[in-house]
């Protein structure tokens, strides 16, 4: 019986140490090499289609709201989030334009006339497509190996962007550098002890299959 107990304890310790090693993110030693690989992988991507789930955690509510739908990306600069659950809504980014559509009503923004919207569009678009090489100097990038994923911690350097996103955690599949998860963390608000965040998880990815241009039309 005592031996059985010891065996169980050893198994528990082994599982605990395994899960610890899976959770621990180690800094990448050769960042230049990783960046070059990421850039090469991004250059080979012409389109992405996938399912996505979105979890918005609101600290003040003590709960999160979940939604899901279809994600589309097409080079250059075309992104669509088609929300299907719990209600239908579209977010389309095409070139300098950004459109939100709900209940047949559209709100179109010109990102070139609104620098903040433009910057946000750039971050979201770059992160969701995994093409982060051209994000510019306004962001500090740190690279980690986190289990079977690379984790890129993206920290905005400018106060304007920090108001919306304190940090973006981007998880890329270590095999093909496709985006697995993106977590956008907001600054802590007055009276709160936890950060609000929005987390996107991408699954059932289809790379480089034809995506109709018509789904990105903004008018």
């Amino acid at each position, binding site marked *: 019986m005592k031996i059985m107990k010891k065996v169980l304890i050893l198994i528990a310790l082994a599982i605990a140490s395994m899960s610890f090693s899976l959770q621990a993110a180690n800094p990448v030693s050769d960042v230049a090499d990783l960046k070059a690989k990421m850039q090469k992988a991004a250059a080979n991507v012409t389109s992405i289609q996938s399912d996505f789930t979105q979890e918005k955690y609101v600290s*003040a*509510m003590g709960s999160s*709201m979940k939604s899901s739908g279809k994600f589309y990306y097409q080079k250059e600069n075309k992104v669509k989030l088609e929300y299907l659950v719990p*209600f239908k809504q579209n977010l389309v980014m095409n070139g300098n334009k950004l459109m939100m*559509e709900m209940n047949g009503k559209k709100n179109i923004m010109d990102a070139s006339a609104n620098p903040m919207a433009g910057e946000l569009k750039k971050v979201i678009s770059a992160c969701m497509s995994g093409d982060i090489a051209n994000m510019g100097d306004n962001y500090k990038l740190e690279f980690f190996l986190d289990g079977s994923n690379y984790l890129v911690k993206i920290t905005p350097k400018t106060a304007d962007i920090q*108001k919306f996103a304190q940090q973006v955690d981007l998880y890329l599949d270590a095999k093909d550098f496709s985006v697995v998860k993106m977590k956008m963390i907001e600054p802590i608000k007055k009276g709160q002890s936890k950060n609000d965040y929005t987390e996107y998880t991408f699954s059932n990815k289809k790379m480089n299959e034809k995506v109709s241009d018509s789904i990105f039309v903004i008018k």
Partner: protein
Amino acid sequence: MFLVAGCTPKLFRDLQMRPATSVKIHRGNLMPAFDRLETAKYYTAQIDFKENSMSGILALTKESEGQFRMVMMTTFGITLFDFSISRDSFIVNSCMEQMNKKVVLNILEKDFRSIFMLNVPEQFSARYYKNPQKPNWIGYGVNADDGECDYLIYPRETGFVRNIQNGGSIKRMNAVFDEQVVTIHHPKLKLKLVLTEMQQ
């Protein structure tokens, strides 16, 4: 006859209600929208301002008795505003720069005070309106902290607030509460907010 009709707020006039008497009301006997929130609720929010439309999500919770918190965000997660409101305070926890203007915040504060009925004390006097042909509908005209405010109640036993009108001509607000849809309308400002409860 004309004088009486002229003094009757439009909200009650449309239902051919007439002023009956002045009454003392205990706020607890009325049921404004959101008053019995037990957990956080989420609403899709459609905002129309003149020719522009915008959509997002409004999260609402009751932090404590008489204190509410509301967070409005875009569908893809950016917080537009985060307010805490009670009878004594209106706290802006965060607000995007474009909205963080006194005139906008004043309108929102007044709207939400009226909607949560935080503009009256626990006990208050009101002018009572009724139409004998529609005994289940009653109206209360209230001199609230921030001005005149009219509440339409249906059915009278539940005290459920169905419709609110407040404010002067420019800032006049009309709020309508259906089962899962709340419409807040400022006709003169051409501003309309429609909240639809999300089933999670």
